């Protein structure tokens, strides 16, 4: 009996940090509509800064708790600075663009933390007076857990007072419920947004700081917590603080007990919970539906698709000619890099297909890339298949995953859809990661050899040409589809679901098949990738790879067809150039942030505006 009670209490105590982080994320999203990927980094900074402050202040009660509170405030200020210096410049950009900037912030903070606190994990200070254990019917519970359990309700009450008893809080609530109102605020908006970032980041910092005695501080905290925080926010319902509390408790308790019954499942348990909740309650436990037609679209309305003018076609031919001649002039390194670029360009184009014209944002597109990769790799390993048939059939696995996951995902919209794609991708990843007997788990599947004619040992040229032909054809095909009735119908469903229903379009079916087609294209990229690398790893399905694709699409420009290609080339190339430096993350992050500020409509959007007239792209009239 005591054991179970302790288990419940342990769950409650681990819900505390989760709730703090998630409530901050939820508040920031609710008011500013920024999907703040860097929120996990603020959590990590909270832990590190608290560590240093407690060292500085001494480990008495005042030093410990003072250090924690000051660390939270410091992190709040860092969040406010990020808002003022970076995000404020890109609020007018297309939806979700801001998340690229926050991705840059993650990278910068990672290397700063590495520089300041070193690579070693830090063991947290024990809380003075709470170092012992409490006996609960014969089972010990760390005393500090009781303090953690008390923190959530206190913060929850504080937030309730703030939102219901102060003018500022009332503004925050109003802004969360009614986007139009935010625009009408004028000058006050800047103040509201900065304040929101301060509060949200402070909560993340507090979350990181209070878990210090239990979990310490390490450099993986940011990514580890961010996925969980999103799950909590989405399960609870975007913008609902009480929902976040409920969800944090639910997930922490399920984890506490899940680990007893079925330890293998803990990696995906919360994603399974999210998937189930979203399937039955598409807006989370306590969330409310987004007003239809009001998905926070920013910037000018998207322009009609026009066929490429002659000069653009000629530029396209020139690029193909360049790629064809590349093997003559370039060495093997350049060819290998170009193979990567081509594969990621196709991957990004496949994501853009559903994300731009389809209006369905996927945070888990690596599931299909990895699906194609593992499809091909498994065929090589278990069916003695040759390269050609593995490449052709590999994407079938991606298609199956996209059909199954897509069936659920297309029923949602906006950020909820994005989070469900992420959940499914995590489920797929953990199956690959844990099913050692078949997938090789973390060790991956090695020795995926090319056919003799395309073998690396002799030369990269044949494989390079194969990749170029396949990727270019697939990208051209997807482009063609966008100009076809199918592509138009997909865009129709995005522009106005109401009108689409009213002219006989089966919106769900249209979206579902579009999602699947995009998954297959990502699968083709993935199956090429395993042969180019000679192996398949769970990384090919992981969240970071999904995020890479997202960054490529947004950085390039989601509102132009060339955007994903430009984004993939830029991102892959910069990453390749920079990753030779010691603190390459810092510089990559900085580069991303600068690109975001310089090109708020994406790089291709910028190019379209300034080079478009020369290429004969006519400027569309604006309202």
């Amino acid at each position: 009996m005591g054991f179970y009670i302790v288990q419940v209490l342990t769950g409650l105590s681990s819900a505390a940090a989760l709730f703090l982080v998630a409530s901050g994320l939820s508040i920031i999203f609710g008011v500013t509509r920024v999907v703040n990927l860097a929120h996990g980094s603020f959590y990590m900074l909270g832990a590190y800064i608290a560590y240093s402050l407690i060292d500085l202040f001494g480990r008495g009660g005042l030093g410990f708790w003072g250090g924690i509170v000051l660390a939270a405030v410091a992190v709040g200020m860092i969040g406010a600075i990020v808002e003022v210096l970076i995000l404020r410049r890109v609020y007018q950009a297309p939806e979700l663009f801001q998340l690229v900037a926050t991705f840059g912030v993650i990278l910068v903070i990672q290397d700063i933390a590495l520089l300041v606190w070193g690579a070693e994990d830090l063991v947290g200070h024990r809380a003075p007076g709470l170092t012992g254990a409490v006996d609960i019917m014969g089972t010990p519970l760390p005393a500090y857990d009781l303090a953690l359990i008390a923190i959530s309700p206190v913060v929850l009450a504080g937030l309730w007072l703030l939102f219901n008893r102060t003018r500022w809080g009332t503004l925050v609530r109003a802004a969360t419920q009614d986007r139009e109102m935010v625009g009408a605020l004028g000058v006050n908006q800047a103040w509201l947004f900065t304040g929101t970032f301060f509060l949200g980041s402070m909560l993340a910092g507090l979350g990181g700081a209070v878990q210090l005695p239990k979990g310490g501080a390490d450099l993986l905290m940011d990514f580890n917590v961010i996925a969980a925080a999103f799950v909590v926010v989405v399960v609870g319902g975007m913008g609902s603080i009480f929902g976040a509390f409920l969800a944090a408790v639910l997930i922490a308790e399920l984890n506490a007990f899940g680990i007893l019954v079925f330890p293998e499942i803990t990696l995906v348990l919360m994603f399974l919970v999210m998937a189930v909740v979203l399937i039955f309650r598409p807006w989370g436990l306590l969330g409310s539906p987004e007003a239809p037609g009001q998905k926070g679209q920013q910037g000018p309305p998207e322009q009609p698709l026009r066929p490429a003018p002659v000069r653009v076609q000629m530029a396209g031919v020139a690029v193909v000619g360049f790629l064809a001649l590349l093997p003559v002039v370039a060495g093997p390194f350049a060819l290998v890099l170009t193979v990567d670029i081509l594969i990621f360009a196709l991957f990004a184009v496949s994501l853009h297909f559903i994300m731009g014209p389809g209006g369905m944002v996927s945070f888990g597109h690596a599931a299909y890339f990895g699906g194609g990769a593992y499809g091909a790799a498994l065929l090589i390993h278990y069916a003695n298949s040759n390269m050609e048939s593995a490449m052709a059939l590999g994407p079938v696995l991606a298609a199956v995953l996209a059909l199954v996951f897509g069936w659920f995902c297309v029923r949602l919209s906006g950020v909820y859809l994005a989070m469900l794609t992420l959940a499914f991708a995590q489920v797929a990843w953990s199956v690959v990661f844990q099913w050692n007997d078949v997938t090789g788990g973390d060790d991956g599947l090695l020795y995926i050899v090319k056919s003799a004619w395309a073998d690396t040992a002799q030369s990269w040229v044949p494989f390079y040409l194969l990749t170029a032909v396949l990727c270019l054809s697939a990208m051209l095909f997807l482009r063609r589809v966008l100009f076809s009735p199918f592509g138009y119908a997909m865009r129709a469903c995005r522009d106005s679901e109401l009108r689409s229903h009213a002219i006989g379009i089966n919106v769900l079916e249209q979206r579902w098949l579009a999602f699947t087609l995009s998954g297959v294209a990502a699968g083709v990229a993935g199956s090429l990738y395993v042969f180019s690398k000679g192996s398949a790893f769970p990384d090919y399905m992981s969240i970071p790879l999904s995020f890479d694709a997202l960054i490529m699409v947004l950085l390039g420009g989601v509102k132009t067809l060339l955007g994903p290609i430009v984004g993939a080339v830029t991102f892959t190339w910069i990453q390749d150039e920079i990753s030779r430096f010691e603190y390459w993350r810092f510089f990559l992050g900085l580069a991303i942030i600068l690109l975001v500020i310089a090109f708020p409509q994406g790089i291709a959007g910028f190019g379209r505006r300034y080079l478009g007239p020369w290429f004969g792209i006519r400027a569309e009239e604006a309202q």
Partner: protein
Amino acid sequence: MTLVVDGLFKAFGGVQAVNNVSFRLDAGELLALIGPNGAGKTTCFNMLNGQLRPDAGSIRFFDNELAGVAPRKIWRLGVGRTFQITATFGSMTVRENVQMALMSYHRRLFALLPRAAALYVDEAMALLDRVGMADQADRPCSVLAYGDLKRVELAVALANEPRLLLMDEPTAGMAPKERVELMALTADIVAERKIAVLFTEHDMDVVFGHAGRILVLNRGQLIAEGNPAEVRENDQVREVYLGAELGHA
């Protein structure tokens, strides 16, 4: 008889939005559904075109029962719809909006290779010509004036050669002169194609100028029905409208 509505009910929580509504509508007829704000007009429309499932009642459209059928299936049976707040495809040109409806009508939505912009151009232009939007066919829909958007909606609604047209406040948000023009246009089209039209409208000039018959809805219930002269004289209607507006029309 094109449409026979019998005993329609719909409640939202405690609000009985539509309460036992029955009426008939024949080909070539322009039937106005009027009533103060919140009377239940839009709710009626949403049941007729399938967006809402009625709590009870039947909707016969020729030989088909429409109650509870999905909007896209109702559209395929030949029911067109315009919305109170226009719903068009903002990233498409005016012509492409109509082409989109035509592609759906001709069941080409899953074609992956043909160029959509080259399909059904003549049909689309003919429809746009009919509503007076042919000269703006190439403009993006997102930049149109509101009155022009309403015309585009009308062209889109005509794309499937409907036998019944549902128009929820077709002239809301338009200038008075435009309103009369749009309703005159609608009346012409109805006459030439023998379509049945059900429309709601706040502008009494439009209602009494064009409707062949009028239904008056108040708090979900039909309180009067008849030709414009009869409705104008109806005491209950006068009471609902406080007499004022009906007098001069």
